[in-house]
């Protein structure tokens, strides 16, 4: 390990976000909101109509996640909470960042250029967490303080989670336009020629 491990705490200010560099490993403390397809759709619809949404995403960590939750007594507990594929939110995320200003988005697989641009403009980072590693991720969630929009179904609701040493998270897109996924894509494109040669393709 030649890179420093950092801790990040919510709310994440614009300068906190801009201080992070692509390739760093960090651990997160504070409040994490889950939000995926339906939350993006509904939050933006509410915004268009001038209606309030039940949580304030400003400086928040937005987690692309549809967890498995279990109710014990009157309290919710996290069973498994890994990331979902972030690219499904590509078409709505630039607007979401502009309107709601989260400080970090946690997910897997990376996001497209318009989101990278929005992150650069508004000071937001993309933190990659290992897909499928949902029990490991759940270890970093100490408690659940509530749920909003539960009528969207368990995977699509906004779960309000309290994170402690949540990670490891890789800063995969920073607020300066750098993306580890874009770097890998460039290499994959180069490698494609070798693969084509091996397969006897043009």
């Amino acid at each position, binding site marked *: 390990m030649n890179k420093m491990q950092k801790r990040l705490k919510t709310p994440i200010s614009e300068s906190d976000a801009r201080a992070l560099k692509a390739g760093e490993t960090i651990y997160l403390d504070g409040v994490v909101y889950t939000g995926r397809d339906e939350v993006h759709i509904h939050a933006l619809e509410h915004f268009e109509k001038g209606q309030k949404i039940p949580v304030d995403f400003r400086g928040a960590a937005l987690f692309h996640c549809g967890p498995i939750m279990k109710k014990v007594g009157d309290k919710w507990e996290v069973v*498994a909470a*890994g990331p979902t594929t972030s690219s499904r939110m590509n078409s709505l995320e630039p607007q979401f960042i502009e309107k709601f200003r989260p400080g970090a988005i946690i997910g897997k*697989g990376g996001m497209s250029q318009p989101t990278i641009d929005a992150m650069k403009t508004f000071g937001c980072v993309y933190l990659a967490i290992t897909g*499928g590693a949902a029990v490991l991720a759940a270890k970093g969630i100490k408690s659940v303080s509530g749920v909003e929009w539960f009528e969207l179904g368990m*995977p699509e609701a906004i779960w309000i989670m309290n994170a402690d040493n949540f990670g490891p998270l890789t800063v995969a897109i920073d607020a300066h336009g750098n993306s*580890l996924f874009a770097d890998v894509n460039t290499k994959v494109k180069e490698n494609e020629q070798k*693969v084509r040669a091996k397969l006897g393709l043009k």
Partner: protein
Amino acid sequence: MVTEVDIQNAIVELLRKTVVKLPADIERRIRQAYAEETDEVPRMQFKAIVDNIELAEKGNTPMCQDTGVTIFYVTLPRECKVNVEKGIVEGVRKATKEVPLRPNAVHPLTRKNPGDNVGERMPYINWKVADQDYIEVTVMTKGAGSENMSQLAMLTPSAGLKGIKEFALNTVMRAGSNPCPPTVIGMGIGGSADICMKLAKEALLRPIDQRHKDPEIAKLETELLESMNMLGIGPMGLGGKTTMLGLNIEYAYCHTASLPVAINVQCWAARRGTVRIYPDGKLEFPIHER
């Protein structure tokens, strides 16, 4: 005589084992890929995957929050009086509450979630009959991140082997970081549009260390797997030596005028399970008895 309740309980147990623990062939390949990896970023991804596999088993907890939709493959004995379908459906309902599984099944248009993974044609069951005294039920709990990257191509016969390879390469590159690589690829060749997609999924039921019995198909499996692993997409698309854990192909004869090719993408958490239910009620879990 096996009852519907026996089937139901067997299904709950099958689903629990399937979402908690990976088949031996998959776990072995993941550990080997971790050992072979030298770069820091992909090593961290593999460490998280391996740690997670161990934590899931220790806590008897689903390894991934996406416990998928439940696709079943059932082989019935010629004489079977029990309502296996009802046993499976009620088993899924019970497992959703007890394991628990994430309620994933929604209406495709209204997106309404009944909360129990049961709805129109879901769980989906494929049926076969054979000369055997036990009921065999195999399940694939298939997540959407990988499923969404699946593709079908209706190639022309003139596209031939090159066309098949081109389609495979393009599909894997387009999937990139999205399906939770390192992936397992199930490929169908031939049949018709619907048969081909089914074959692609069924290919995922074979252990990844077993090559197809037809040497030509086996050769193509190895060639495609080795080639795709030169792409460098790596675990979670963050770069690395292993992009794909395995690649299995199943084929069927097709119309002389067509060449269907299909790919069903599976994530590293390539969960599958089987239960055999004997007439005396005895259960066997061949994939999970290890």
